[in-house]
């Protein structure tokens, strides 16, 4: 029964299972053999710098991109081989909050939240109205039900996007950069919502972010993605230990440490310097 799943149990079957995922755009490899399991009821945070492939990974997990190699399973179903109808059946079981909220600009906030309910359920209008009010109350936006997306702030758009994402009471919620572009207080509020949904309703969450404060606040486990490779997947405490510890001399650990701490010196910046600047500029001057 669901009752026992208060704490993520490692032996449980993963709800999301990504295996050896490879994605290339033209000749550029964006995901280079990513493997990741997410277990019921946990919050998995995927971190990484810009262009590390974390958004691409997310898009594979929601079935909006096709990989070159590997598989993505949600609830045991391999998204890669599903027909559109089957994929849509899976899509009704998860929700996603996009970076900008991605509200439909031609509809009011309330209509945005009602849309999945209108399209995918046989519930009557009154019930749907009540559900829309409940979802908006949950994200603290009940008074905005009749406003158009253009009339509300970025933070409100995000909360409205979250209300729409949870319209069908999904089992998994994906968040794409939930705190990007928000002030610290609004960002903390969104984090609290993520934690409430996971803690009280048992929703499984996958969060893609580069905001470390937020990541450490909400994560049960974390994964660090770099240049299309998953460097490390571990419980939050392990990452906290790396962040708070001294540099070890181990390249990978130090790289993670630099990222977590936001230091301006370390393996990440060293790597950028090793790009053959000297040869490059001498060549411009007519060769050595």
């Amino acid at each position, binding site marked *: 029964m669901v009752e026992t799943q208060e704490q993520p149990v490692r032996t449980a079957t993963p709800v999301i299972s990504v295996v050896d995922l490879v994605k290339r755009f033209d000749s550029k490899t964006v995901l280079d053999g990513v493997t990741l399991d997410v277990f019921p009821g946990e919050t998995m945070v995927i971190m990484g710098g810009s262009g590390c492939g974390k958004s691409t990974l997310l898009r594979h997990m929601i079935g909006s991109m096709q990989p070159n190699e590997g598989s993505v399973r949600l609830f045991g179903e391999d998204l890669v081989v599903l027909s*559109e109808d089957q994929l849509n059946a899976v899509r*009704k079981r998860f*929700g*996603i909050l996009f970076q*900008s909220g*991605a509200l439909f*600009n031609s509809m009011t906030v309330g209509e945005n939240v009602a849309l999945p309910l209108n399209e995918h359920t046989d519930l009557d209008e009154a019930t749907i109205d009540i559900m829309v009010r409940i979802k908006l109350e949950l994200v603290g936006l009940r008074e905005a039900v009749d406003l158009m997306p253009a009339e509300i702030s970025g933070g409100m758009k995000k909360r409205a996007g979250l209300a729409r994402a949870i319209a069908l009471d999904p089992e998994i919620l994906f968040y794409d950069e939930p705190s990007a572009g928000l002030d610290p207080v609004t960002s903390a509020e969104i984090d609290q919502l993520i934690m409430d949904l996971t803690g009280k309703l048992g929703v499984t969450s996958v969060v893609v972010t580069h905001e470390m404060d937020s990541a450490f606040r909400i994560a049960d486990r974390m994964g660090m993605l770099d240049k299309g490779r998953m460097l490390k997947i571990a419980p939050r405490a392990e990452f906290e230990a790396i962040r708070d510890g001294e540099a070890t001399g181990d390249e990978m650990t130090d790289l993670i440490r630099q990222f977590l701490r936001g230091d301006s010196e370390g393996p990440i910046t060293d790597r950028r310097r090793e790009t053959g600047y000297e040869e490059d500029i001498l060549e411009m001057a007519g060769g050595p």
Partner: protein
Amino acid sequence: MDRAGIPIYLVRWAGAQVLTALGRIGGMAILLSVTARWVYKAIFTPKARFDVEGLTVQMVRVGVKSVGVVALVQIFIGVILALQMTPPLEPFGQEGMVSNIIGVAGFRMLGPIITAVVLSGFAGASIAAELGTMVVSEEIEAMEAIALNPIRYLVVPRILATFVMTILLTIVADWMIAVGGWVTSRLVLGPESYVGYWVRMREQLRYRDFVTGLIQAGVFGILISLIACHEGLKVTGGAEGVGRATTKTVVYSIVAIVIAACICTMIFYAFEL
């Protein structure tokens, strides 16, 4: 340089152009076939209902908002035809024939083609900009994520609306050209032209002149909206990409309209329509 003396980059460039063009046409063919499948489903299966409200909104946006511009442009086309065609007829004492010429030229070709050109700037550009903006703001992805097919909910109503409204506007346009010609005859040309203007036009025109014009209008309408949806949905690169998509939509639409008009005319000619 190869032996034939054609720089290799020219061949490469031409090849690349052909490939992009083919890719684009292929993309639109797929879009059209998926659209046709949804229309078929909406009509023949009870479950997938038609989004009547969405269709109405699009028809108003495509048609009602551009009817003024179409009418205005077409009146001027009528004026131009009357002024240009009358002098060559004078030496033969056939000024009256100008109404026959306006009738055929207007109903068969200029009515549909000018209407379509106006609509490609009006409706085509705005559809491309709208869908492009939806791509940029992740709305299309959001639709897919909540298991709603963007082609069904966005492309189908836009193509149907543009198809219907191009035909309806062409009917208006045809009459505006005729009226423009008549007003010019009345005010500028003289009784040889305007006396019996409508009678002669009625005698000249066959139903097929009218119908072939409307068939072309329908084809143009599908082309404009198909190009607009296709360009809009494949926008990349933010606001700049949206701008590029609208420009491309207008240019490709006009080229496509003229080519389609030529092909249609050839077919009508071959079948003596």
